[in-house]
C-alpha cells in the first residue's frame, strides 16, 4: 500500500527526460497536504451528513412503493391516458428507488468515508526476467513438437488448416436465392390496372384531375399471398396529372402518358426510399430520406440531391372501361442501382 499524503515529495524528476531539452524544471512538491472536511472535525456536521444519507435511502424506499402503486394500482383500459399514468409512475418509482440508493451511497462516501488520497507504486508491466523465461518456454515447446525438423507435418497441417474453414463459408450459401433477374421485373404488365394504395380500387382516368396525385399499386398486388411486401417494394408508383404542355416527353415516350397523366416509380433511384412528397406548384418530387429532387416536367430528371438517375416511368394508357392500365412493365430496373444493372 502507498503512503498517506503527508506532503513529502515523491519522484522529483517527473518532467525532465533524456532527449528533451528542458533541464531547468520545477521540482515536484509532492502531494498537497490533506485538508479535513467539516464532518471530520465537527461531530454535528458528521451527524447531519449521516441523517442526510439515511433520508436518501428512505426516498429510495418510497420510490419502490410508488412503483407498486403504479403497477397494481393503475388498470390499463385501452386508452393512452392510463398507459401514460402507469408509465410515469413506474418510471418515477424506479428513478427515485435508484437515485435514492445512488446519491445516498455517494454522499456517504464523500462526506463520511476517509478521503485521504494515497499513492501506490506502479509495477513494471513486463520484467526482463519474465521475457527471457517466456522466450525459453516457447523455444522449448517448438523444439519439443519438432515442427521445424519435420516439414512434411508442417506443410500438410498448413494445407489442412487453410482448407478446413471453407465449409464454414460455403454452408451459408442457402441464406438466400441468387438474384437472377428478379430486380429487373415488377408486377406491372400490359393491361394491369393502376389501383389506389392501399385498398386496391382501380383508378379511372376521369378521376384524375389536373394537379392531383395518387399513390398507386398494381391491382393484382392485393391478391398475392406470398411476397406481397417485396412485390410492393418494387411496384409502387406515383400518378400525377399536369397540363399536357408542362410535360416535355422525349422521343419514343410521347404516348407513355394519357392526357397529361403520367406514372413514375415511387422508389428512389438513390437508396430506395419512397419518393413520397409531391410539390404540386413546382412539379417537383422530393425524397424525404435524402432530399433527392426530381423534376416531373423533365421526365423526373434529378435536379438536386444525391440521386443520379431519373425515376423510371411506367407507360400507361386507358382500357375500354376508362380505367388506367399499364402498357408494359417498367423499361428499366426500378430503385437503387446494383452492380449488374448496366
Amino acid at each position: 500500500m502507498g503512503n498517506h499524503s503527508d506532503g513529502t515529495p515523491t519522484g522529483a524528476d517527473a518532467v525532465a527526460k533524456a532527449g528533451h531539452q528542458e533541464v531547468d524544471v520545477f521540482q515536484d512538491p509532492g502531494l498537497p497536504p490533506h485538508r479535513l472536511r467539516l464532518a471530520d472535525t465537527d461531530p454535528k456536521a458528521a451527524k447531519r451528513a449521516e441523517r442526510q444519507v439515511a433520508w436518501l435511502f428512505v426516498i429510495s424506499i418510497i420510490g419502490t412503493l410508488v412503483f407498486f402503486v403504479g403497477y397494481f394500482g393503475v388498470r390499463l383500459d385501452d386508452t393512452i391516458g392510463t398507459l401514460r399514468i402507469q408509465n410515469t409512475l413506474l418510471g418515477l418509482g424506479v428513478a427515485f428507488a435508484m437515485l435514492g440508493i445512488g446519491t445516498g451511497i455517494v454522499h456517504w462516501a464523500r462526506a463520511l468515508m476517509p478521503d485521504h488520497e494515497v499513492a501506490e507504486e506502479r509495477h513494471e508491466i513486463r520484467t526482463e526476467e519474465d521475457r527471457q523465461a517466456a522466450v525459453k518456454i516457447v523455444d522449448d515447446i517448438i523444439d519439443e513438437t519438432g515442427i521445424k525438423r519435420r516439414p512434411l507435418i508442417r506443410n500438410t497441417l498448413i494445407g489442412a488448416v487453410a482448407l478446413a474453414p471453407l465449409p464454414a463459408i460455403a454452408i451459408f450459401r442457402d441464406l438466400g436465392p441468387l438474384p437472377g433477374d428478379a430486380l429487373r421485373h415488377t408486377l406491372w404488365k400490359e393491361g394491369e390496372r393502376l389501383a389506389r394504395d392501399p385498398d386496391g380500387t382501380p383508378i379511372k382516368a376521369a378521376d384524375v384531375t389536373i394537379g392531383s396525385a395518387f399513390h398507386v399499386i398494381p391491382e393484382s398486388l392485393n391478391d398475392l399471398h406470398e411476397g406481397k411486401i417485396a412485390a410492393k417494394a418494387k411496384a409502387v408508383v406515383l400518378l400525377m396529372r399536369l397540363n399536357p404542355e408542362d410535360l416535355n416527353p422525349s422521343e419514343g415516350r410521347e404516348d407513355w402518358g394519357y392526357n397529361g397523366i403520367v406514372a413514375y416509380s415511387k422508389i428512389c433511384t438513390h437508396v430506395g426510399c419512397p419518393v413520397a412528397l409531391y410539390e404540386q406548384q413546382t412539379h417537383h418530387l422530393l425524397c424525404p430520406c435524402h432530399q433527392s429532387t426530381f423534376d416531373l416536367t423533365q421526365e423526373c430528371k434529378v435536379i438536386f440531391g444525391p440521386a443520379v438517375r431519373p425515376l423510371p416511368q411506367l407507360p400507361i394508357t386507358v382500357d375500354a372501361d376508362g380505367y388506367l392500365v399499364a402498357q408494359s412493365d417498367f423499361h428499366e430496373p426500378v430503385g437503387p442501382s446494383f452492380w449488374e444493372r448496366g
Partner: protein
Amino acid sequence: MSTTTETPFQAKTSTGRITDFVDQRVGGSGILREFGRKVFPDHWSFMFGEVALYSFVILLLSGTFLTFFFDPSMAETHYAGPYVPLKGVEMSVAYDSTLRISFEVRGGLFMRQVHHWSALLFVASVSVHMLRVFFTGAFRKPRELNWVVGGVLLILSLAAGFTGYSLPDDLLSGNGLRIIDGVVKAVPIVGTYISFFLFGGEFPGTAIIGRLYMMHIMLVPALILLMVAIHLFMVVVHKHTQYPGPGRNDRNVVGYPLGPVYAAKAGGFFFIVFGVIAFISAFFQINPVWNYGPYDPSPVSAGTQPDWYIGFVDGALRLMPGWLFNIPMEWNIPLPWGTNTLSFNVLGPALIPAGIIFMLLFTYPWIERWVTRDDREHHVLDRPRNAPTRTAIGVAGFIFYCVMWAAASSDLIATHFEVSLNDVTYWLRALFFIGPILGFIVTKRVALALQRKDREIALHGRETGRIVRLPHGEFQEIHAQLDDYKRYKLVGYESPVPEEGIPNENGIVTRKEKLRGKLSGFFFEDRVAPATPAELEAGHHHEAVEAGDDDKAITH
C-alpha cells in the same frame, strides 16, 4: 498442499465460516488482498467509461425482459389488440408483439423506453469516453491496444444499436433497412448477392428480422461482453491513468483505495445512472412505433431520422451530390462481359468518411508514436492545451463528424429555421471541407494561448483584483504568487521541440525520416515552453515562445 484436514483458522461467525469455505476452495483472500485497496485516481471525466459500462448492464437487464415477450417473426397477422387506430391493420408478428409489449404488458412500455434510452446513452458515453481518452493522450504507451479495443467496442455498440432499432419492424426502421439495402446493393460485384443473402431473397423478405434478432440478442452482446472483459482486464494491468499535478508521476498512481471510497462512489454511480435513465423513460417518449405504423414500402413521412449514432452516415449520404458540375457520380463501366454499374454517389459517402474516421482512430496512437519517437510509458495524462496539435486534430475530426451528423437533420434545420433546404445542404457541403480546417487552426491557437496564460500565472501569480497606488502615483494591481502545488500543475508538462529527420547508419536521411521530420515540425513547431525556476527567480521573463513565425511574444 498437504492432505491434512486440520486448519489453524476457525471462523467465529456463520458468514465467516461460509467465506472461509469459499476462500479455501478458490483463494479469494489473495484476490481481495490484491484488489481490496487498489488505488484508483478520481476525476469527473473518468466517469464516461463507467456510464458506458452501467448503461450496458441496464441494456442487458431491460433487454432480457423484452425478449420474454418479443416475437421476431415476419409472418403476416392482423392487429387485434387494444390500440384502436391500428385495429385490423395488416402487420408482421414482430410489430404486433412490440405493440403488445407497449400496450398490454404492464411495465412493458417502460422497459422499452429504458432499453431505447440506455442504448442511446450507451453509444453516447462510449463516444465521449473515447474523446476524453484521445484529448488527454491516454491512448499512449502502454494503452494503445486498449484504445483499439475501445474502437472495436464503439463499432460494436453501433451494430448493437442498429440491429435493435430495426426489430420492431415499424415504418421508420423499415425505411432504415431499405437504405441499408440500397447501400449494400451499391457494393461492386458482390453487393446484389449480399443483399439477397442478407434478406433471404428480395428486400424485405421474411427473414431479416429473425436474423437481426439473433445478432442483436446473442452475437453482438457476446462480442461486447468479451471486449469489455478484455478492456477492463487491461485497465487492471495498466492501472488507471491520472491527471498531472503535484505528487503524481508516471511511476505512481494517486487516488482513493477501491474499498471503501472508490467502490462506494462507483457502485453508487451505477444506481444514479439507472435512476436518471428511469427518470427520462418516465417522461420522455422514445420511438413510439404505434404512431409510425407497420412497415410498408410505400409511405414515409417527412422529417424522419435514424437514431443519433447512425446520423453521421445518413448525413454523408445526404451531402453527396449525385451530379457534380454535370458529371454523374454513378458510372456504367463497359467490361468485356457487359456493362456494370458503380454507384459512387452511394458507396462513396457510405464508406469513405466512416472509413477515414475509423482508420485514423485506430492508427493514431502509432502515428503519434512514430512522429515523436516516444517509447516511454505514459501514465500521467496531458491537459489538452499542453498537446496543442493533437487537440487540434481531435477537434478537426470531431467537427468533420458533426457536420455529417448535422446533415442528417438538414430537412429539419430547413423547416425549423425557415431557410431553403438546398441552401442548408450547400452550406453543409462547404463546411464538410472547411469546418475541420477552421477547427484545427482555431483550436491550436486557443490551446497555445491557454498555455501562455498558464505560463503567465505560474510566473506572476494570479490577479487579485486589488489595486494599490504607489507613493509616486502609479497604480498597480497586486498579483498573488501561487503556492508550489498550484504552480506545479501549470508548469509540470513536457513541450517537445521539433526534430529533424535522423540520418541512418549510412548517413542518409531516408524519405520516411524526412516525412517524419516534417510531421514533427507540424506537431511541435509552435510551442510554449513551460516556465522554469530560473525565470521565476529572475523575476524577469524572456521570450516564452520559440519558433513559430506567427507567434507573438508574450507581453506583460
